């Protein structure tokens, strides 16, 4: 018997091969759709409205949200750096709220700037040591939202955008916050770390804490974590601003930073807080008998053209020592000032700068700097006023001096202002 390839069988084979279907291993790529939260706008609460569902909630207790409510907020902080663990914060114009979630890597789904809507029903409002939380119940107390429920508790709305994040509430120094600011983004200005050179977290620390101090000696604890990706970074010296989430522990405010971008410390080129009468500042009296003097009570510099000799016009300069802006990239200058009494002199207070001091204020060419000056003309002082950050980048590379020029008209009663200067800083941002 001859044996040749049999076309009939090959045809059967081919038919079976092709007709019986194929294995589909190519998957359509999912189509991207901008997430839209599904909520009932008539049931929308603000964050403070949500917290006020149970205004008297005791610490350690939870309140179950039985009705349909929604809360809108913008993510202000999450676990991206590892400093925060299984929690994130949202905020609206009425307040901030801590979300307790039993999941890690939240930042992938909820970046800072993401708008979310909380579907509150069947979830819990908890009070953990005075901090109001959105979460779940765990052994009767405040707990985290179980992983599998996160998607039903937190709805995304739109894509994340950093511009959604509200400006932090800014305080001068480390004080000035109220319990309404808890879980909100805040900014501490002109503060410094108590122990620069230390690490943000040492490996053997369970609950690393670092202390921030402001110019007036007020302190606030900054909580970090050994899991933070900046744990092994060194705490910077100098003054600056720190942004973070305000929290509470043992009834005291504390701060969580999100990452090191939240810490903006500056090189301090000049730091004069007038704790003593500075010998290297020059007091020059161009006219009149009064002169710049040291105020030991308030540790600041003062000038008052009134004195005992009324009717005498004054011109007095307080000139800083020379300092170099040779290595400065973006120098900026600030000081605090306060004033009282009115004067007919049109420009009693002027801030000057020069890069070519002759040793004589009258022959030196000065540039006038634009500063925020205390407008108070009452007979008593109001609060200290910050000059604001005065840009000195035009003088980069030069040796400069700064001067405070004071003038009074000397024309009878109410003819001189009283001016105090304190906390002169030149920093390089």
């Amino acid at each position: 018997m001859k044996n040749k390839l049999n076309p009939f069988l090959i045809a059967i084979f081919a038919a079976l091969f092709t007709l019986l279907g194929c294995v589909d291993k190519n998957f359509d790529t999912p189509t991207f759709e901008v997430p839209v939260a599904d909520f009932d706008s008539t049931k929308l609460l603000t964050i403070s409205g949500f917290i006020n569902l149970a205004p008297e909630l005791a610490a350690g207790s939870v309140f179950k949200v039985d009705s349909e409510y929604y809360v809108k907020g913008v993510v202000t902080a999450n676990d991206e750096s590892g400093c925060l663990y299984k929690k994130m914060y949202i905020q609206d114009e009425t307040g901030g709220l801590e979300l307790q979630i039993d999941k890690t890597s939240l930042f992938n789904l909820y970046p800072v700037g993401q708008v979310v809507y909380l579907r509150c029903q069947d979830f819990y409002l908890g009070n953990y040591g005075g901090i109001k939380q959105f979460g779940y119940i765990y052994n009767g107390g405040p707990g985290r939202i179980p992983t599998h429920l996160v998607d039903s508790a937190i709805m995304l709305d739109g894509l994340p955008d950093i511009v959604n994040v509200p400006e932090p509430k800014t305080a001068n120094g480390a004080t000035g916050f109220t319990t309404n600011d808890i879980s909100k983004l805040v900014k501490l200005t002109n503060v410094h770390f108590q122990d620069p050179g230390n690490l943000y977290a040492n490996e053997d620390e369970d609950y690393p804490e670092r202390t921030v101090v402001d110019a007036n000696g007020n302190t606030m604890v900054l909580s970090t974590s050994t899991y933070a990706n900046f744990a092994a970074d060194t705490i910077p010296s100098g003054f600056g601003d720190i942004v973070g989430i305000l929290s509470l522990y043992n009834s005291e405010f504390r701060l969580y930073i999100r990452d090191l971008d939240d810490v903006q410390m500056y090189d301090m080129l000049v730091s004069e807080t007038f704790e003593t009468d500075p010998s290297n500042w020059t007091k020059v009296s161009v006219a009149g008998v009064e002169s710049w003097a040291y105020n030991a009570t308030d540790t600041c510099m003062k000038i008052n053209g009134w004195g005992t000799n009324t009717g005498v016009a004054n011109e007095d300069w307080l000139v800083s020592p020379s300092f170099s802006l040779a290595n400065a990239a973006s120098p900026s200058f600030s000081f605090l000032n306060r004033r009282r009494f009115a004067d007919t002199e049109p420009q009693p207070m002027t801030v000057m700068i020069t890069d070519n001091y002759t040793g004589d204020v009258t022959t030196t060419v000065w540039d006038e700097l634009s500063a925020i000056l205390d407008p108070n003309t009452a007979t008593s002082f109001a609060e200290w006023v910050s000059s604001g950050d005065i840009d000195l980048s035009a003088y980069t590379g030069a040796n400069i001096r700064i001067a405070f020029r004071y003038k009074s008209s000397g024309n009878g009663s109410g003819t001189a202002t009283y001016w105090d200067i304190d906390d002169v800083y030149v920093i390089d941002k």
Partner: protein
Amino acid sequence: MKNAIFIFLFFLSAGLFAQNAKLSGTVVNGETKKPIQNAVVKIGVLQTNTNEVGYFELNEVPQGKATIIVEAEGIASFKQIIKVNKTEINIGELALGENSEEEMDIDVVEDNIVTGDFLDEGDGGAMPSLLNSSKDVYARTAAFTFGPMFFKMRGYDNSYSSIYMNGVSVENPEMGRTSWSMWGGLNDATRNKDSYVGLSSGLFGFGDIGGATNISTQPSTYRKQNKVTYSLGNRSYRQRVMYTYASGLNKNGWAFMFSGARRWANEGYVDGTFYDSWSYLGAIEKKLNDKHSFVLSGFGAPTERGLQAGSTQEAYDLAGSNYYNPNWGYQNGEKRNAKTRYVHQPMIVANHVFTPSTKTKITTALAYSFGTFSNKALNWYNAYDPRPDYYRLLPSYITDDDELQSYIADIWSGSEAIRQVDWDELYYVNYVAYLNQNQEENGQAKYMIEDRRDDHNRYSLSSNINHILTENITLSGGAEVSRYKVNHYKLIDDLLEYDDQEGNYFWVDVDQFAERDFPGNDSIIQNDLNNPNRVCYEGDRFGYDYDIHVNSEDVWAQSKFIYDNFEFYAGANVVHTEFWRVGNMKNGRAPENSFGESAHTSFLNYGLKAGATIKLSGHHYFIANGLYETKAPSPKNSYLSPRIKDDLIDSLSSEIIYTADFSYVIKYKRFNAKITAYNTFMLDKTTLNSFYHDELKSYVNYSMTNVDQNLKGIEFGSEVKITNQLSVLLAGSYADNRYISRPTATVSVENGSQADSSKTIYINNYYLPGAQAVGSFGLKYYVNYWFFNANVNYLTKSYLSFNPERRSEAAINGNTWYADEYEMKIDEITAIEKIPNAMTIDLSIGKSWRIDYKYYINLNFSIGNILDNTEIITGGYEQMRFDFVNKTVTKFPPKYFYSFGRTFYLNLSFRI
């Protein structure tokens, strides 16, 4: 030792000449008395095929005693000793019994590949289906019935069996084991094989303690055929079509064979497991004259499949199925499997068969193989673990709030979406990361599918000689040289980009956990210091990239003596192995010992074996075999952390194996039985496991040296013909396989977060994993081209693969137990888990038709596990993590693999 072999080989070439005979006869079907066409008739190295009327002729048969073997497809073979004392003999009719079992070619090895957390999950490991057609009742039962349940004969894995393809070893030299998928689906065209189980003598190589098989694709040895097969089933694949053509040897001395097959399933027995396999084989033979034949064969089987992952019993119970597969998830409404495997390793073999005389046959083979073994899986960076059965997602993770725990359990069991991969979220997260890349330090994609590839090529040259020295003595021997190189690397396969984002996403080639452990250290985190912080896109290599080279030379020889009442053989081999690593990346965790060529490591190993058969009478035989060998550790087990560096494992040494078996065989016309006792020692073994440690977020390499094992037991197989139609089979074995040493474990963490460390593992006298006692009772009924088969099978004495960490001092030290609970606690941590006993019943039924002696139709239908027992654990492992602080074993419970429930297989073939 070497000299002895050369003397041996020298003798092989000496021939003896005597008057030769012409032998003829006719082969018929014993049942129907119809002639059988194309049966293969063999005496020693001589071989021919029967013609249309079953007639055959063999010329040049040497004088003296000869064993004539007749084999025909689908029919039990025939073996008889004849005396050649004339120059022309007609031995008349040789009647072969019908046995349709061989048509039951279910691809046993292809079923049920389940993966764990381990990185090197090769395929193979279960017993080969090659042994299905073995004449040994026990071996056939062990392979066919227990093989799918991962039963290993004598506890040996397949690295202890030698497989040759046309005389060339196909064992993977790096892994030391054979990948069956190389020729998967080519059942018809790989049917001709010469094999033995356990210790014996062979004609094609030294073999190994588990046995040896040589598959031949020489076209002239295949029955002339045009055959189409269609199969339908519900196991790994649902459908199969297969076509085979064999021309037989034509007048001009040419023979051809072609076979092609496809096996596929959009979804197999387990959810989310697709299967797509193609296979092809072509072989051409030219017989120049009586002395020279040339054969060229080429084959391959490109196969892609979705894999199942083993899970914990908690997950199975909550999902309501022991076949729960966490690997898949819906993507655009279709099930997408995150873990897939693609294998395509073609091989080309050129053979020269040289028969210089009727007493001598020299087969030479030159082979080249190459191809890819690829495993795709999810990888993630600085993102939530995407595996839905991640232990933190299961109710058991909550230990102190019962209410919450039961609520989570409800959610888990109530929602398929929760239990499966959330592809939509992975795509979305990647997109958000892309949008935010300016704000982030790194800005890379968070999730991707990575492709872990092993691309190899290999050249082999082998030559074997078989020579009949005298009437009683046959000499065999051979040599093989092999040059193997494999390139291990990872590719970015899919960055999970939305359609309009194709090409936008990227991945930075650094180690994520090293980054977290060594903040600010920009050098240690690099996977390749030669290309630091390299930005990779789809299709780029990343992670690791290294080559392993393995060179080997192997010489073997064997002589066999056959006398009336006594047979004896002895053999020896010498193997030289040399291997080294070439790093193509300079890893930041091992800058000094990762890039470039490593030192070469070499081993010289040898083996000796001998065996004897005493024929007490024609019905009673006593057989004894023994083997001693040393085996080089496989390169795969020799490098401590090969993806990172080229450090060898400390005190790397050859494995020492010695074994002996004793059998008693009874052979009557209606009754045969064989009982075997064996005892095997495997000493100084080296093992290496790589697995993902989800707390360290790194692959961890776990090496054990000085692993000694003792495997001993009894095997029994018997067949009783109650009537001409009805047979009863009984087969079983009972083993006692144990560890007999305290190995040293060395742990190497790939991200470098922990220094390599060693410890003692206390496992002396522990049982080896797997079933150690099995039994099967079967009935076979054959009448009028109908056959029925039924088997009841039982497995017991099975143990789970264990986590060595739980058997270390650290697991016990620092405990706070009370005195009265001490022993209980130690037992809880260190005791080995016994797997429940299992029983299955299998049935099959078949019928063949023969039309005009021209067309053959074969139909068979089989049902496996007819009781639909879905509680059969075939294996599993304790997770490689342990809660050292709380000393609880429940935090990381074992993962189990289950045998399929009821399955069916329908097979229809049509042959001309």
